[in-house]
């Protein structure tokens, strides 16, 4: 005998067995509520599984992107390293148009391969202007770039210009040296200290190895000097 056990609230079963229509309506309402509850329960179950999975996926994605970027950066650096030559204790000798010798030195000089006359990145660069003169001028900085084609040496970060003659030292943040003319100039504030006194200005330019120097103020920031009374 094949007994079919029907659940208590099957749609097709009419428990009322002929009860009044009001009770039939109530039971249909109850059945609908149950169906809604079941649907919601399924959604909640689904969400409980889907949300942690999506969080995991997102985390994996982020880690993956970070790792890829790191790898690409390393690749690029290696590429740059492979594509450039690094000289240690580099020395560049030259002469300006007036025949005055200059020497550019650096702890390291890195040049892109294939760009023979291209810019050279310098670490701890030094410059001597007028090496063949009794009082050459010495300039040094933390970093610099020397462009052999234009002859321009750009220095930045803690630039110090020691003028040989009177023991005056200028300190500034940037300096641009045109090695063809020997002009040293800078557009950032400059401070100078020497036996004679001190000076400060907003920008400066040193011509003919110090034979002529121009300091400029800007607005209310005048050029200021204190000259010690001998």
């Amino acid at each position, binding site marked *: 005998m094949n007994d079919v056990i029907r659940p208590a609230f099957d749609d097709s079963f009419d428990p009322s067995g002929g009860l009044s229509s009001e009770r039939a309506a109530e039971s249909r309402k109850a059945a609908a509520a149950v169906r809604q509850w079941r649907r919601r329960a399924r959604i909640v179950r689904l969400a409980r599984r889907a949300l942690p999975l999506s969080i995991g996926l997102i985390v994996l994605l982020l880690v993956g992107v970070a790792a890829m970027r790191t790898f690409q950066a390393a690749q690029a650096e290696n590429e740059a390293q492979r594509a450039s030559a690094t000289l240690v204790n580099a020395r560049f000798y030259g002469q300006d148009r007036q025949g005055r010798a200059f020497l550019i030195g650096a702890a390291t000089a890195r040049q892109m391969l294939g760009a023979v006359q291209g810019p050279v990145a310098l670490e701890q660069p030094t410059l001597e202007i007028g090496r063949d003169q009794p009082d050459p001028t010495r300039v040094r900085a933390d970093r610099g770039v020397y462009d052999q084609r234009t002859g321009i040496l750009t220095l930045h970060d803690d630039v110090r210009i020691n003028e040989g003659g*009177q023991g005056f030292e200028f300190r500034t943040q940037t300096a641009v040296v045109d090695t063809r003319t020997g002009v040293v100039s800078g557009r950032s504030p400059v401070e100078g200290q*020497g036996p004679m006194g001190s000076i400060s200005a907003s920008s400066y330019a040193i011509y003919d190895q110090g034979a*002529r*120097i121009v300091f400029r103020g800007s607005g209310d920031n005048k050029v200021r000097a204190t000259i010690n009374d001998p």
Partner: protein
Amino acid sequence: QISGSGGPIMMGADNLEVIDAEGVQIWSGRAEATQGNNRMRANVIRAYHAGGGNRSGAPGGGLSGDIVRMVAEGDVYFVSRSEGQPDQVIRGDQAVYTRDTDTIVVTGQVIMTQGENVLTGSRLTVNNTTGRAVMDGAPTEAGRRVRGVFYPENRPQTR
């Protein structure tokens, strides 16, 4: 220096040009020089150093040595302050200070005021060391004349 008391000289201007061969600093644009109680202002102030030009050409040469002569040009305004005295103000077109003689010579339309007293002329020579001042006359119809207005101090009558 511009003051008998000496001491460091503070200079300021919009621009400064140092020419080593001539041993000169050219301060231009609202130029001013201050020393002790004295202050000088002008459009341009040229400060000449001892031994100008004997250097080898390294930068900063013109910034060394000590000032032997100062020339101020254009709207020269010189204020001298001394204890217990009203400020002495001198205006002119040009002023030259010479260290060896410690004198300042102001020329052009010279006006010297101290308190309410006024003295005008064409050339004023002030010796910092002795404090002696000589004013030369300005050209007028009646010849070169010095003009002055002095207000006697009203001292209370003692009985």
